[in-house]
Structure formats: C-alpha cells, structure tokens
C-alpha cells in the first residue's frame, strides 16, 4: 500500500526532453549550453529507510522502469526523504553510498555449501540447501534435546545449536525468527544489540 508517492518527477521529464532535442535538431554543432538531462525523470520512486545506523534515515530509492512486468527494476540513485522528520532529506556518507552496497560485487546470489575440509564453495539448489540444513537440525535436536534437567524440572530446551540474529533485519523477520526458534527450543540465541 503506497501512500502519497511524490509525482512531480514525472511531468518535468517531457519538458526537458523536448527542448534539448529541438535545439540539437536545428544546429548541427553541439547545443550552445545544454545541461545533463535530469537523471530521475520517469524513474520509479520508493520510500524506504537506510539499514545502517539507528537514526533510521528516510530514503527515496529511484529505480528504472515503472514496475511493469517485463522490465526488471534496477536502482539508479538513492537520496534522502525530505519528509522524514529525523533526517529531513539529509544522508551521511554511508547512507548516501547505499547504492554501491546494494549492487556490491560481493552480493550473494545462489545458495552455496562448503563441504567439510574443502577450500571452495559449491553452488546448490534451494531445495538441497533447506533439505540438508533441516536434516542437520533435526539430527542435532533429536540427539541433544533436554526435556528435563537433573532436578526433574521440565525445561524442553535444545542447547546445542546457536543462532545469532541480525539487528539489520526488519521487525517482522525478527519476530518470525524468534517465534520459530522458541518453538524449536533454542536457548543459545543472541543479537548484535549486545556487542
């Protein structure tokens, strides 16, 4: 549900394109003084929040295409959200450089596994990855589940698999993670908030 998206970039593109082309058309030599066409004309604008520090600056993400089915949107620019009351359109050097992180050469694209003792990754399918991880989890849980402690108190914990949760994950992902892990009985659970 997208509320009050900012529309004004849409109209200004037509004006600019027309004038410069007209001038180009007339004089064979370069136009007298034409500036770079405004990069964001007709770009799709999405409101989001910078994932880095806890100021949680509002950002406007500009991506190619208009979310039509056949064009895969690609981020071309990220700048501050002028309406966000905390950053009012400003960004720090990290937030202003978000695009390079989203499009970093080190982005992971496929599930991979490093077999015991090996020195490189092997690409695997999602099914195989989930299958093998779940097998590991079930084997470990069944083997090391502690129903009662030595004093006979029901404890139902699975202490031998740990989980470090990301403080950059959204609340919904965090909530689903903690709900699932508590159901599995995991007690070795922590997050970046501590360090």
């Amino acid at each position, binding site marked *: 549900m997208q509320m009050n998206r900012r529309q004004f970039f849409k109209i*200004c593109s037509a*004006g*600019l394109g027309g*004038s410069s082309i007209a*001038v180009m058309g007339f004089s064979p030599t*370069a*136009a*007298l*003084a*034409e*500036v*770079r*066409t*405004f*990069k964001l004309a007709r770009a799709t604008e999405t409101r989001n929040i910078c994932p880095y520090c806890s100021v949680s600056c509002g950002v406007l993400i500009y991506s190619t295409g208009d979310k039509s089915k056949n064009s895969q949107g690609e981020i071309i*620019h*990220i*700048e*501050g959200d*002028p309406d966000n009351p905390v*950053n009012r*359109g*400003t*960004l*720090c*050097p990290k*937030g*202003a*450089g978000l*695009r*390079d992180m989203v499009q970093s050469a080190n982005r992971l694209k496929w599930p991979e596994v490093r077999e015991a003792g090996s020195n490189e990754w092997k690409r695997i399918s999602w099914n195989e990855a989930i299958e093998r991880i779940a097998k590991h989890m079930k084997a470990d849980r069944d083997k090391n589940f502690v129903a009662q402690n030595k004093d006979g108190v029901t404890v139902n914990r699975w202490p031998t698999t740990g989980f470090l949760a990301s403080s950059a994950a959204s609340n919904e992902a965090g909530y689903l993670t903690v709900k699932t892990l508590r159901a599995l009985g995991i007690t070795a659970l922590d997050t970046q908030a501590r360090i």
Partner: protein
Amino acid sequence: MALQSLDIKQRSATTTPAPQARQTIEVAKLIDVSACIGCKACQVACMEWNDVRDEVGHNVGVYDNPADLTENSWTVMRFSEVEQNNKLEWLIRKDGCMHCADPGCLKACPAPGAIIQYANGIVDFHQENCIGCGYCVSGCPFNVPRISKKDSKAYKCTLCSDRVAVNQAPACVKACPTGAIQFGSKEDMKDYAAKRVTDLKERGFDKAGLYDPAGVGGTHVMYVLHHADQPNLYSGLPVNPSISPLVALWKGATKPLATLALAGVALGSLFHYVMKGPNEVSKEIEAEVEKEDAQ
C-alpha cells in the same frame, strides 16, 4: 531557473556575447565550516549522483581520502589540525570549484563553448566542446579543474547544474547531515552567513567571517570561516585569490592587438611590394655579366 541557451552569461573562447536575455536569480552554495563534521557525505553524494567512481586508493597517514581532487572526485574534504594559543582545532574544509563570478578557467579556455557561465552563476564544463588542453587548470586561482587521463577532458564540480535546472538543490547540499552546506539565492546565503558569523563571534571566534573573495568578483560557493583573517589555516585556502596577472595579461587585450599586428605585417608587406615595387636585378649588372660571357 531552467538552464537553456538563453541563460548564458559567458561562454569560453567566444568573443561575441552569448544569448543572455533571461534574468534568473543568482544561486550560491554556502559552506559553514563551523558546522561541518568532515563526514564526507557530500563526497559520496556527489560521486553517486554523477555516476563517477574514483580508485580505491591508499591511506597515506591522514583522514583525507581521496587525497586530492581528481577527475572523478569533484569535491574532497581537507583536514588540518591547528593548535593556536593552546586550543586545538580540527579545521575541515570541503574543497571544490568556487564557481567564481569572474572564472579564471573560462578566461583561459581556448575552446569555444567548453566552459559556460550561466546567468545563475554556475560555471559548468561541457566536455563535448573541451579539447583537453589544460589551460583551465592554469587559469583557476583555486587549482580545481582536473584533466581525465581516460578521455583528456576537464572535470570539476558542476554545482549540480542538472539538478538546479529542475529546481532541485545540489546533491551535496541535500545530503549534508548537519546543514553545514546551504543553497539558495546568493542574497539569502549572505544573510544566513551573517547570522552564523554573529553566532560564532558570540562563541569567541571574533575573527569569524564570510569568505567571498572579491579578487575573483565574488564566488557562488562561499565559506563561513571561524578564522576569516587566516583562510590559509584551512589546508591552503588562498588568502586573496585572483586570476593570475599572467593569465589576465595573456588572455586579455594583448591577443586581439597581437592579431592586428600580424595582419599589419602581412598587409604592410603587400603594400610595400605595391608601392616600392620588387627588388629587381639591375639591367647594367645583367649586361656586365653577359659581356663577361662573350669574352
């Protein structure tokens, strides 16, 4: 203030006036060094907006990265640690094009239309007309333009002429977290600077002031400095910058005169020939020679 061909105040290597019918407001960027925390958000925003990336260089023992302006870094932060009357100050200055009212680069540039000064004060490089000679580097009193090794074109801060053309603030201005960089009409920026200067004076910086050097006719990028009497403290900000007399001399009136002089020599020769006639070999000597042949 859309920038089209009717908003040009000056055009490099163009002796006839550029079309400048429109009167638009003069914009200015004010860099309030006293509120600047040297975070380099402006550097990142500039690179990201203009789709240029510098090399990932080395740390040479200072916070300045990249160490200098380059064809890909159109603005860089310069850090200088100053200790005066046992008060330590960390003076950090955002370096980049000052968008002078009387631009040395434009005056020095031999290529028509390579450098444009718009009516709103922005001095912009148009790489399609640039021939890569580097005269702008010599002309600039602030050592700002850089020539790219890849395409031999000159590059510098454009004051986001494309954003300003659609009434947006430059990328660095919008990004600046502490509002150390402000943008608006030059008048508004001067008023804002005056307020900042009074505040600084109250905090004990009695020499605080606005840096808008008259030597280059004032600039469209101005600084509010704690120590306006010592701009050199801020990593070599020139104290009284102006276009070097050598550039002014060579690019001023002498050139047309010299051209006329050459035309004069050429025409002079022609009229000398017409008026004095050629330097013929005299008949007597020709006769003498033939006489000698006959013997």
